[in-house]
């Protein structure tokens, strides 16, 4: 499937979406850019450990509600600047979790559990300060009836635990190294919560560095993370995680990330940045052509190290 079709078919105004990867690693940037290009509105974003992908979507005004546990391009931007701006200016609704809890929420959704109870967040403001007002929780059918509830463990009345509702994700988008047209996926490097959001979501879009034959992946099925039946669309998008890292393929693009750091400080500079890099290119192919072959070659990881030693990072 081509990117435009996949996003058009599986991401709608008002949907709840989740993006894979972690901060500056294997983030599905190509898909995020296409969502921005198509101008999807009023999105509910379950972001987990988000990076520039979600920061750009916030900056472009697509996000209505953000469920967040971390948002940064760590090492380049310590706090996502469009996120920060939107929160400080009261432009979006947001709700905080700890990253651990966000991870286990995605996992519980993948397991199809009715709810989950944990000990994390007890004794912290994550319990009693709610970003989404109680009345919004009650009235918005896309949201659970409330953020959480502290109560006792039914098997140990002396123990307090935190009961959490399980998120309902419409569409998950992840970027992987290898996928077959049938949907079978193989991920190298860290998985993060990618399997969880893919299994939890009603629809799952996979973008991949390499589109490979099913036979290749099925010869060693124990190395595949997602089977055909878990995936709804496979999009071939080489460098689809740029400017973030993609294990065994490329390192992050520190120069680009610093450029984004500067641009995202300011409304006007941000607008110019996305005008140039998102709206100004027709699709992901034009984007990578704009970067150029030699430039992208310079990001390739050095086999054996798993990253690019000596990479220019500032």
């Amino acid at each position: 499937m081509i990117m435009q079709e996949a996003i058009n078919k599986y991401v709608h105004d008002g949907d709840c979406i989740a993006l894979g990867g972690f901060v500056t690693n294997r983030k599905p940037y190509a898909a995020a850019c296409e969502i921005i290009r198509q101008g999807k509105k009023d999105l509910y974003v379950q972001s987990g450990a988000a990076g520039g992908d979600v920061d750009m979507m916030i900056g472009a005004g697509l996000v209505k509600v953000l469920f967040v546990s971390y948002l940064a391009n760590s090492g380049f931007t310590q706090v996502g600047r469009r996120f920060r701006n939107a929160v400080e200016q009261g432009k979006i609704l947001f709700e905080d979790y700890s990253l651990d809890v966000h991870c286990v929420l995605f996992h519980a959704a993948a397991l199809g559990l009715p709810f989950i109870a944990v000990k994390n967040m007890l004794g912290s403001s994550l319990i009693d300060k709610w970003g989404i007002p109680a009345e919004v929780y009650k009235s918005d059918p896309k949201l659970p009836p409330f953020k959480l509830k502290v109560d006792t463990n039914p098997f140990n009345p002396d123990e307090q635990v935190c009961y959490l509702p399980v998120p309902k994700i419409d569409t998950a988008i992840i970027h992987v190294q290898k996928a077959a047209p049938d949907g079978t996926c193989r991920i190298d490097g860290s998985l993060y919560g990618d399997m969880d959001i893919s299994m939890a979501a009603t629809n799952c879009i996979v973008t991949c560095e390499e589109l490979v034959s099913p036979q290749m992946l099925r010869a060693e099925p124990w190395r595949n993370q997602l089977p055909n039946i878990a995936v709804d669309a496979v999009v071939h998008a080489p460098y689809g995680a740029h400017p973030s890292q993609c294990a065994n393929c490329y390192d992050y693009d520190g120069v680009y990330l610093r450029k984004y750091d500067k641009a995202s400080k300011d409304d006007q500079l941000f607008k110019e940045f996305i005008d140039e890099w998102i709206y100004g290119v027709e699709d992901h192919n034009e984007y990578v052509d704009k970067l150029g072959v030699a430039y992208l070659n310079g990001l390739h990881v050095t086999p054996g190290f798993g990253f690019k030693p000596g990479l220019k990072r500032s």
Partner: protein
Amino acid sequence: MEWTNRQMMAIAVARQIKDGTTCIVGTGLPLVATSLAKNYNAPNVILLFETGVIDGSPFEVPTSVSDLRITYNASALWPQHCYFGFQSNSWKKNKVDIGFLGGAQIDAYGNLNSTAIGDYSRPNTRFSGSGGANGIATYCNTIIMMKHQKRRFCEKVDYVTSPGWIDGTPDGRTKLGLPDVGPQVVVTELGIMRFDEKTRRMYLAEYFPGVTVEHIVENTGFAMDVSRAVESEPPSEEMLDILLNKVDPQRIMV
């Protein structure tokens, strides 16, 4: 021999790491400090990261806990939920010795804020969010690394992202459902603070060479016992050499 306070801070933290221990490490100074320990006083320290990377051996300073640099020579790259489980069980199974935390604000009982300054819903300053900090604070003994400023060392934090010793009462944590672990030490660019065994309140344990106790008191926004404070040993030439020439030769962090 010269050194900066930030380098002294890294060395002071490295000295806290016992050999053979297992540490949950965040990026930045904690990684520099634990790498230093691994290269000097604790060659068998095991580094864990909230991304599920277990026992990695980074040799160029990573910019985040998801940086590919962390995965070099790792024992396994666990999916996120396995890290969650390992951390949740580590306390019962005694599998993690220490975790690192930082923050924008800290109170006298080690409660930390890394979420927002001002009103939570409409803050003056918003930070990146908890990340893995809250989970580490829930389940692990911790070393906290902070900038030492009066507005950061404050009577009451605006938002408790990572609970410390709560209000200092002996059952402060357990009555909230939290395991009885917590902050062990706070290291800043000025010195080392610990928590009183009985009151759980922060006290000054060490001040770095060249720093006065008065300067620390002036930069602390709550009353802190300084009666037990001694001057830290200055960094050894060897340790400083490893820090500057092996751990962070590009001087990205120190």
